[in-house]
Structures are given as C-alpha cells and as structure tokens.
C-alpha cells in the first residue's frame, strides 16, 4: 500500500510570465538529497533545504536573459550548471554570489537540457539531438554539433525514441508502437531497473504504456528505426472534461504517481495527485491539490514535488512492496505512532536507499562502459564492494549487483564471474526471487558448486527449477561430476556414509548392538529361514558417485510443495528415476542402520525428507516403474520395506494401550473401601 503523507509548501511560485503557463522550469536534485534546485521561469535559481523548507542560496540572471533549461547540480565537480539564452552554459559554485561573474561558455548549437546523473558527468542534450558530456563540451565549446534528428523532427516530437550510447557511440532509433490514433505522449518517465531501461508514457486518453529497453542492444550496428514494443500497464479513468495535460512519474517498479487526471470516485475534478499500482491497477493513495495544476511532477528521494496554485508542495510518500494483499488494502499496516516520527524514519530510509543506489550504479555502469573489462576485475571489484558496503545497504545492493552480473553473463558467453557470484551468495542476502536467472545460468554453465551453494542458501527455489537442477545433476555422468569442486562438508558426509557400510560389513554385517528389525513375516515366523540375510544389508553400495550424492542431498533438503513438484518430476526419464530411487533407497537403508548418526555433518537430509521424495517419485512415475523390468527389483525392495514399516507400526499400535496405561498409571485410583466398577474383558 502506498501512502501520501501530509505535504508542506517549499516555496511560492512566481507570477506566470511566459506563454507556456509554466511557473517552474524544473526541480532538480541538489548536492544532497535534502537539497533541491528550483529553477523558476522568471530569472532565478534557488537552492532549498527541503527538510527546513528554507532557501539556502539563490541566483538570478540579468534582466533580458532567459534561463532556457533547469539548472542542475554537477555532482562530479560540485558545481551548478545552467543554460541561459539557449546557448550560454554557466557553471558556478555554491559560494559564488553573482551569476554574472561565474564561468560562461557559449556553445555552437541550441541546448535543450542539461542532464545530470549521480556520480557521472552531466550530459548536454542539444536541440538537434546530439549529446555531449559537459566536460568535453566545455573543453572546446565551439566544437561542431552534428544533427541527429532529421529536419522535421524535434525531440518530443513524434512517436519516436532515440537512444544514444557512448562508447561506442551508437544511436538507435525506436519507434514507439502504440495503438493507432494516439497523439504524442504527454509525459515520460524513465527508470533504470536491472539491466533495462523502463520507459513509461502517459497519453492524454489516460493510458499508461511501458516499454522495456535493454541497456545493451543486440543489434548494435543496425541502422534505421526499430520498433519498440510497449505494453499497456494502466488505464486511468477519464472524466467528462477534456484533458489537456497531465504528468506521470515512476515511483518504483509497481507504483506510478499521476497528476492531472481525475480521481475515479471524486468526480470530474482533476486536481488530484494519485499513486497507482501498475501491477494490480489499483489506486493506492490520492491527495487533492488546491489551486491550479501545472501538470508538472518531480520525484526525488521519496518526495514528490508538485507545483500547484501559487506554491510548490513537497509531498512525502511511501510505497510498500507490492503484494496482492497490499494492493487490495488487506495487508496489515504497521501502526505508526505519529506523522513526524514516521516521516523521520522515512527520511532515513530514503537516505540509505539513495546511498546504495549511488554505490551500486557507480559500480554497474563502469563495467558497462568498459566493455572489455575482465572477469577478474569484476570479481575484485565485487569483493571490494561487499567488504566495504555497510550491512544494511548490502542487502539491497547485492541483489542488484548479482542481477547485473547475471544479465551480462547471459549476453556475454565469455563472461562468467563465478567467484563474484559465490561472494555474493555468501553474503546470504541473495535469494532466488532476487536473482532468478542465477541458478539457471549456473546450470547452463554446469557450475554445480554454485548450484550447491545456491541450494543451501536459497529457500525459495521454485519446484520447476528444483526439478530442472535435479535433472541436470542426474544426467551428468559421475566421472564429470567427480571433478567438480563441492562443499567439503557434504562430500565428507557422503564419504562417511559409504564407508560406514564397508566398515560394518567387515564387522560381520552388523554394528555393535544393532539388532536388525524383523522385516519380513516369513523370516520372523520360521526360524529355519535364517539363511536369508537381513534384507537391509543387501545391495548397500551407493548407486551414484560421491559428488552426485552430495548434490542430490542438497536437492532433497530444498523446500517444496509436493503438489507443485509432482508435475515437474514427471519430466525425469525412467533411468534417471531409477538411479534416483536407488540412491534414495540406499540412503534410507543407511539411515535405518543408524549410519548417519555417527557422522558429524552440518547438513544432512532427514529421514522424512528421504521418504517424502521416494513417495513423490513413485507417485510421479508409478505406472512406468510398474512395467519397467529394470525397476522391478527396486520396486520390490521398496515394497518390502513399506511392509516392514506397516508391520512395525501395527505392533506399535498394539502397545498403544499399554503406553496409555503407563501414562495414566500415575493417577492412582483411590476409591476407598468399596466401589462398584465395570471392567471389560476382550
């Protein structure tokens, strides 16, 4: 459930001067998350400390000059950057008082925007579509600027998206494919999640489309216009009134804040700020905005900046992880004692998030930019990152890093930083759902060590994946398997288990004091039949290699629900099932000889896990096993021990009454000198 908290006014919005009816040119992140840079459409740039609602610095241009794009803060050089009169780039520092005395450079083409990314050099986007790094531009301001766009195009023009990449400098044109008849989107929002850029477009008809654009396009050299598919993720309700404008901004992967569209239950009034859940298409929170709406919306570090009426409001929000229960409002809200308190906490949280993002992205972008960076470098860097990052940040960051590495490994066949993955796994902050591709990647790479660690650490592996892994393990030949480097503890366990067998054989088949349970009725009834050895001691050799056994043990210990596992188990081939069953039988026999109890191992499959898997396998392949001749002996053996178990429990059932009496015997029956009772004899 998302929440919009009580907002407060940051500043007033000056009188509208220009024709575009926009009072504020832009709100940008300042030097810190608590600072924002507000560029109004008059002539001034003001830095506000958000939590204090106070300006800490203000600069303005001379009369007659126009600020043509919102000022940004260059985090690299700790300088402010603004463009005046379309071509003059001005750069100044916090303590510069007069903007006129600041550094100025005139470039050769009209600048549309200066974009600042955290921890990277700001980029300058020209009206003609060209993009330059600010530092390179300022080094030679008069360099020629090429025309990227054709003459009849302007940025934000038609349904096209241009994506330019540096190093190598590529340009891909995408045509946004939406339903025909739609005009241009009225608002964009782009976020970078994982290895993809998520683009969100808001159309006037209330549709919100999303496109996913991979960072690394496969067709690098392809010229021409590529089609960019987009999916409708939200349909906003429309009032009767015809809408002219609106804005949307992505809050997180499931939430989007929309302004300028009517509240679905509040009639046609469109002065609402709403948070929608795109997964479930539900309205999560809304707030009525007094005064005129400018269809402008910014979002920085957990706060929405909304100009409305004559003021710029800051509205903190909170989006909880989207689950169906939360979306339907069914999830219990953690009680909050007071708003001030909660907003404090909120600030802290966002503060942390912010930092993490900085670290993470700095780390991820670098390898991306250096395409040729080696696996070793990545591993060293990941190690450094894990070592340095604070625990709380690591939890979020580890997943993202892993995601990045996996996606790169998937595209780059030579890139497989196993050590980095292991390091990330060892943080224990990863789970399957954080990085679903990791396990399948490991399977593809036949990295059974990674698989084993993942099986040990992940508690949420889907049954289908478990089964796929099981299949991969069973289909790998033992010889190949033995070369795999595995967790020593598990291998030692297997070694001991198989040796316990040979040792007990040397001692004459039985451990000291062990008395084999009378398994078969025919054995126990006729003592002359003693020649037939204890059936448990038959065929006690391990049917699989040590390493395979160790891996299978890990599979046995994973969590699963039998109903979902059963259909996937049917994918196993009959030889695989037989080998697996034989191994399970081996384990069971070992366990019934108490062999495992002498082995000190951290992780061992429990006897109930073994039995459950036997049952599942038999359930899944019963008909096949019943007719397969090579399975006959196995099924017969299993049948025998089921019979012995049934017998044992029947015997236990018989003494149940005695045990009950033992339990009740403490309560002495003192009835005095005389009583009349009823006894029953059977």
């Amino acid at each position, binding site marked *: 459930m998302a929440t919009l908290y009580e907002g407060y006014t940051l500043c007033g919005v000056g009188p509208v001067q220009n024709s575009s009816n926009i009072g504020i040119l832009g709100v940008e992140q300042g030097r810190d998350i608590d600072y924002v840079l507000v560029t109004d459409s008059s002539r001034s740039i003001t830095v506000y400390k958000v939590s204090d609602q106070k300006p800490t610095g203000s600069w303005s241009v001379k009369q007659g000059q126009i600020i043509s794009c919102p000022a940004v803060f260059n985090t690299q050089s700790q300088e402010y950057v603004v463009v005046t009169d379309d071509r003059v780039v001005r750069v100044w520092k916090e303590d510069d008082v007069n903007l006129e005395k600041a550094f100025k450079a005139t470039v050769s083409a009209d600048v549309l925007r200066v974009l600042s990314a955290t921890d990277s050099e700001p980029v300058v986007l020209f009206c003609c579509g060209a993009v330059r790094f600010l530092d390179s531009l300022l080094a030679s301001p008069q360099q020629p600027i090429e025309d990227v766009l054709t003459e009849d195009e302007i940025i934000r023009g038609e349904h096209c998206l241009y994506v330019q990449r540096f190093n190598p400098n590529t340009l891909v044109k995408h045509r946004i494919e939406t339903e025909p008849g739609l005009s241009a989107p009225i608002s964009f929002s782009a976020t970078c999640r994982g290895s993809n850029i998520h683009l969100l477009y808001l159309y006037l008809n209330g549709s919100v489309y999303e496109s996913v654009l991979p960072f690394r396009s496969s067709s690098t050299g392809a010229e021409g216009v590529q089609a960019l598919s987009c999916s409708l993720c939200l349909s906003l309700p429309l009032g009767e009134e015809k809408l002219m404008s609106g804005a949307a901004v992505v809050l997180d992967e499931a939430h989007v804040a929309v302004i300028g569209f009517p509240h679905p239950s509040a009639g046609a009034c469109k002065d609402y700020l709403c948070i929608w859940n795109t997964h479930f298409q539900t309205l999560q929170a809304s707030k009525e905005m007094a005064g005129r709406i400018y269809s402008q919306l910014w979002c920085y570090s957990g706060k929405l900046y909304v100009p409305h009426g004559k003021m710029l409001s800051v509205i903190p929000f909170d989006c909880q992880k989207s689950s169906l229960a939360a979306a339907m409002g069914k999830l219990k809200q953690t009680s909050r004692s007071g708003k001030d308190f909660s907003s404090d906490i909120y600030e802290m949280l966002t503060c942390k998030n912010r930092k993490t993002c900085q670290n993470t992205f700095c780390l991820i972008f670098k390898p991306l930019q250096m395409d040729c960076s080696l696996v070793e470098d990545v591993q060293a860097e990941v190690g450094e990152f894990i070592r340095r990052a604070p625990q709380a940040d690591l939890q979020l960051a580890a997943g993202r890093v892993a995601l990045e590495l996996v996606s790169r490994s998937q595209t780059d066949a030579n890139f497989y930083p196993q050590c980095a993955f292991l390091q990330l796994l060892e943080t224990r902050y990863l789970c399957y759902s954080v990085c679903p591709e990791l396990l399948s990647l490991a399977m593809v790479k036949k990295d059974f060590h990674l698989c084993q660690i993942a099986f040990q650490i992940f508690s949420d592996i889907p049954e289908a994946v478990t089964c796929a892994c099981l299949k991969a393990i069973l289909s790998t030949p033992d010889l190949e398997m033995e070369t795999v480097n595995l967790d020593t503890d598990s291998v030692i366990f297997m070694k001991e288990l198989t040796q316990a067998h040979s040792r007990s054989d040397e001692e004459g088949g039985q451990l000291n004091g062990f008395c084999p349970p009378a398994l078969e009725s025919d054995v126990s009834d006729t003592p002359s039949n003693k020649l037939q050895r204890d059936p448990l001691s038959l065929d006690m050799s391990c049917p699989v290699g040590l390493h395979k056994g160790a891996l299978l043990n890990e599979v046995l210990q994973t969590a699963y629900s039998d109903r979902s596992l059963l259909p996937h188990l049917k994918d196993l081939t009959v030889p695989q099932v037989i080998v697996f069953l034989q191994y399970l039988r081996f384990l069971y026999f070992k366990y019934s000889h108490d062999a495992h109890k002498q082995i000190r191992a951290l992780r061992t499959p429990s006897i109930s896990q073994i039995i459950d898997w036997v049952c599942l396998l038999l359930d899944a392949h019963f008909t096949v096993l019943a007719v397969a001749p090579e399975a006959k002996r196995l099924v017969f053996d299993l049948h025998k021990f089921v019979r012995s178990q049934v017998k044992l429990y029947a015997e236990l059932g018989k003494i149940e009454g005695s045990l009950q009496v033992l339990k009740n015997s403490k309560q002495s029956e003192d009835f005095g000198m005389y*009583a*009349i009772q009823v006894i029953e004899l*059977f």
Partner: protein
Amino acid sequence: MGEFKVHRVRFFDYMPSGIRALAFNRDIERIAVARMDGSVEVFHCSDRFFQEKIIPGREQCGIEGLSWVGERLFSAGLNGGITEYDLTNQKVKYTVDAYGGPIWTIAGNQQGTHLAVGCEDGTVKLFEVNEDKIQFERNLDRQKSRIISLSWHPSGSKIAAGMMDMIQIFNVETGHSVHRLLADRGVGTSRSKECVVWSVVYLSDGTIISGDSVGMVKLWDDQTGTLIKSHNVTKCDVITSYLIVPLEWQNEDSLVAGTSEGTVVQFQFISMVLGKDDKEWVRTRTFKNHTHDIRAVAEITTAVVSGGMDAQLVVRPLLDKVEVRSAASALRKIHFPHRRLVSCARKSGLMLFQYPGHLELWRLGESEGKGSSLFVKRNPEKLLHLKVKGEDHIRCSAVSPCGEWIVYSTASSLRLYRLHCDNNNVSITKISKLPMVLSSANQLCFSSDSSHLFSASTQSSVHLVSLSQSGCKFVGTLKPKSGSHQAIHLLAASEDGKWLASANSDHEVHIYNLQTRKAHCTVPVYSSAVTAMGIHPTTNCLFMMYADQQMCEYSIEQKQYTDWSRMVQRKGLHRFWMERDTPCLNVMFNPQHPSHVILHDTYMLCIIDQSLPLPDDKTQFYNQLTLKSLPEEQRKSHSHAFKVCKTFKDILCVELMSDQSLVVVERPLEDVASQLPAPIKQKKFAT
C-alpha cells in the same frame, strides 16, 4: 468378550499374623511356620510352597519354638507346654506341660530320640520321644537365668544353651555344664543392658555360633571355650530389647542370620585361598526383603526362608544352589493363606469374612448409572459380627448360597446358625442339637440349593447333613475307597446336587454320587496339590487347578479327562501362566457362557474361554490392552483362551454372584503394612 460389574471390596480387615518360628524338615521337604496367633502352617517346599496344612491357633498360646522329630512336629511356647500336632487331621494332638515356666526354645536331636526345651526357670529339660507321646526324662544343671536358645551337637552328646550374657555347654550324659562362654555386652549406653543370646548353633566340628542382641554373630571353640571370631551383623546402634539374630544352618558350610532391621545375612564356610583347605566363616550375602524384624530364618536346600513381624514368608533362592532357573526357583513372598477366608452367598449378595476369632457378614451395596465407575446407591452394610465361643480360632466357615445358613468350625466345635433377614432386622438362631458327627470339620460346604451341608471330617470322610426349617438331620457319610486319611481341604458340590468332589492333602480327589451316597470315582493323583476346584454346572466336569499352575478338566460322568484338558496337557500352558507365583484359589463358571471358566489368584483374575485357541509361547499372553486398542474386527484374530485382568491386586477372593456381577475382595498390602507396628527406627544420615 464381555463386561462385568465388579464389587471391589476392601473392607475385609484381614491381618496376617507375624511369623514367630520356622522349622524345615529336609526329609519330607516341608517347612513349618508358627505364627504369633499360635497357628502352625506347613508349606510344601517342592510344590511351589503350597500351604498344605493349617492348624489354627488359640488365644493365649504364644509359640516360641518349632521342632521336627522325624515327621512329627512339636512346638513349645510361653504357656509352658509342649505340643505335638496331628498333621493328618491338622489339629493339635496333645500338649504336655513342662513345669518349668514359659518355654523359650525347643530343639530335637538329630537321632530323633529326645527333645530339649529351655525354660524360664533356668532349666534345660530333656524329653524322650516315644511312639505316640513324649515323656519327661530329666533336667540338666539348672542355671541362674532363663534359657533362650538351644542347640544339640550332631552327635547328641552335648547341648549348647544361649542365655543372658553367656552360653553354657552341657554334657547330656552327666547333665553338667562343661563350658561357660561369656558374651560381651555392647559398648556405650548398651553396656548396662544384658546381652541376650537369641540363637546358638552347635556344629559337628565343635564350633558354636551364636547370635545375640548386641547384633553380633560370634564363633566359639567348645574345646577351649574361646571366641574365634565375631561379625557385626547389624549396624543398629539403637539398642532395643528386640534385637534378634536368629541363626539357622544347613550343611555346616552355610549359615544365615536374620536381624531386626529386616536383613538376612549369609555366612559361608569357605577357603580363603582357592584350592586350600583352611576354611573360614565369611560373611557373603545380605538380603533385605522384610520391613520389620525377622523372627525366624531357615535355610532350605536351595533357598533361605525368613519370616518376621511383617507376616510375610519370604523364600529367597540361593542361585548358586539352583540348578535350573525356573518359576519354582524365583523369589517368593507369601502374604496370604492359600485358603479362602471369604465365602459368598451367591443368590443373596452376602459375604462372610472369616477372621481368626470372629465372623463378619456383609451385604453388598447397590449401584446405579453407567460408566466404568458406578455411583454407589446403597453402601455395603455389616449385618453380623459373630464372635467365636471358646479359645480356639476358626478353622473354616461357610455361608449357604441362599444366605440363610452360616456355619463355622473350630478345632473343637462346629456351629450352625440360621439367619433371618427381615428388612433391616437381622437375627440369627443357633441350631442346637447338631448330629454327633458334626463336632468339628476340616472344610464346610453347602449344596447349591442350600438344602444340604457337607462337612469334611477325619479320615477324609464327608458327612452329609440335610437342612430344613425345623433343623438339620444327619443323612450319611461319604468315605473314599482309598486308604488315605489326610484331611480334606477342598469341597465342591455340583449345581444339580448330584455330585460332590473332595480334595485332600495327599493330592487325592474323590468324587461322590450324592444320590447313591457312594464314591463314584477318583481323579488320577497328580504330583501337585489341588488348590481350587469346581464342577461345571452344565457339563458336570470337574475343573481343577494345581499348585504348579497346571489345570485339568475331568468329566465326572465319563470318568476321564476331557478333550480340552488333554489338549491343554499336550500343548502345554503359556510360560507366563506357569510363572505366576500364587496358586489359583477359586474356580467359577458363568452359566451364561458355558465355555468360560473364571479363575483368580492373588494378582489377577482370569477368564478361560475354552472355545478359543490356546496361546503358545510366542503369543502375547497378557493381551487385554492390545485387544482394547484394536478395532473390533481384528480382536478375534489376536485373542486367545486366557483373558487375564490385572486391574485388581492383593486379591483374597473372587466370586461370581448369580446376577453375573463379580465380587472381588482385595486386601491391599499397603493397608496391611500400615497396621503393622512401627519397624525399628534406623538412623538415616546425620539426623
């Protein structure tokens, strides 16, 4: 199988009497037990310690010693008399006054010619044992203090006598004292108290072993009169007047001593160095099976038997002497007599409790409601308290099935009463003018229609008396064909009034036809004593339980064992059944289920369903709990003929009333223990 309504009765205040003396006869393997109340019992050591004979006691007859002379049993007591018992008819044969005041000890010589008694006046009196009586011969030199204990030298030429503070050795020929051995008193506060030599044993090599009140077992040399060795047996530092160390020896290489703390200590004459001949008396084993002081010990062939104030006879096997370990050689504690002390009027819900000196008649309570424990609507009530006339204790008693007649017999008299129950008024009238033959009875029994009384008399005969409103009339005497004159201890009459079975101590079971009043047949004699028997109401088969836990069913009409009985003998009984250590004391039949035989011993109630298969040794014998937990349809396959109910403990009597309810008379041993005098206080830790 079935439900039974059970009257659990615990208000029979039977108190077994403490054991005062034991005497073992190796030749006939019998052990005689004298109790505080003057009764003497004879147990058969090789027949699972079955209590063969009971000679009831008398008031004021404190027996202090027992002695076998051949197969004759003598006792002497504080009343100053020496008594010989008629073991055939289980009664006192005669009593001879020794004229020496209370007698503390009696000892017969091994030759079987003389009895010596130690008297309060300080004399040892010698009696010659004649064919039918004993004859006073002479006194040995009179001593200043009472003679507490006596032991003959095996040669019969010397007698050692334990007294206060000393032991005197007499030459039997001259009657003079040969040696005087001074026993040390205890140390400390006990210094002022006399040391009582409670027990002496004279061994053939001249060693005299004494047990005294200081708690010492001392070994003396009769040649030099010196102390060889002394063993402190009890750690009891509280000197009481009752610190007794009775001694008993068997083979001159083993000796047992009992203490007032309830322990039995064994000493053995063994060589200290293996293979060498110089043997010494060494304390070897300690048993503790008693809560109270031990007043008598006896070492029998394979076991140590001890008895004392806690009234239980404990047979502790010496496992080194047992060849085959079996149920017969297990530790055995005999708490209750092997006779029935309760008889029930089946048709009127009355119970007759037999105490030594009185009878109590109770009416059972009534219940209502359902469940496992029923609400008692009417409490049981005591209708009658009948005191015995005279000093003799009751030997046997019976109430008729209809509840109208009560009969009891002492050693000297038999009394028959008629009971009138008129709502709440209960009155009895004594039937006078009894026939002469009814002067005394060994066992009494009514016919099932209460019209006849059967009285077991001397020479294994049974007198038949008809009862009517006007009185009773002697009808006839049933005499066995065989020559056995042993007393009858069991009688069983058939439901149809046609047959009567009697069992005597010679293990003979005679069956009489009551219509012809002739002996019908005799059941083949079995080596073990019959402990209970009953005649089946419909088939007229006699069902017998033996002391060795065997069972037999004998068809009276066909004069042969039944097929079922033969099958039981052929297949053998279950191990657990054979290992029970108390005899079955009653055989009952359920008219509604003719195949059922109901049995009980002290610890269990058992219904044998003759229609079900017998259990073999692999079958679970005590399977009631198993069957209870099984579903109905599976029970059949798991059930066998023996349905044992262990709900009840310390059972004195079980009877099936005519309304199908069971009466179970229990006497919990805890209740018995709580009525015993406090045992000797022992210091525990530093309190």
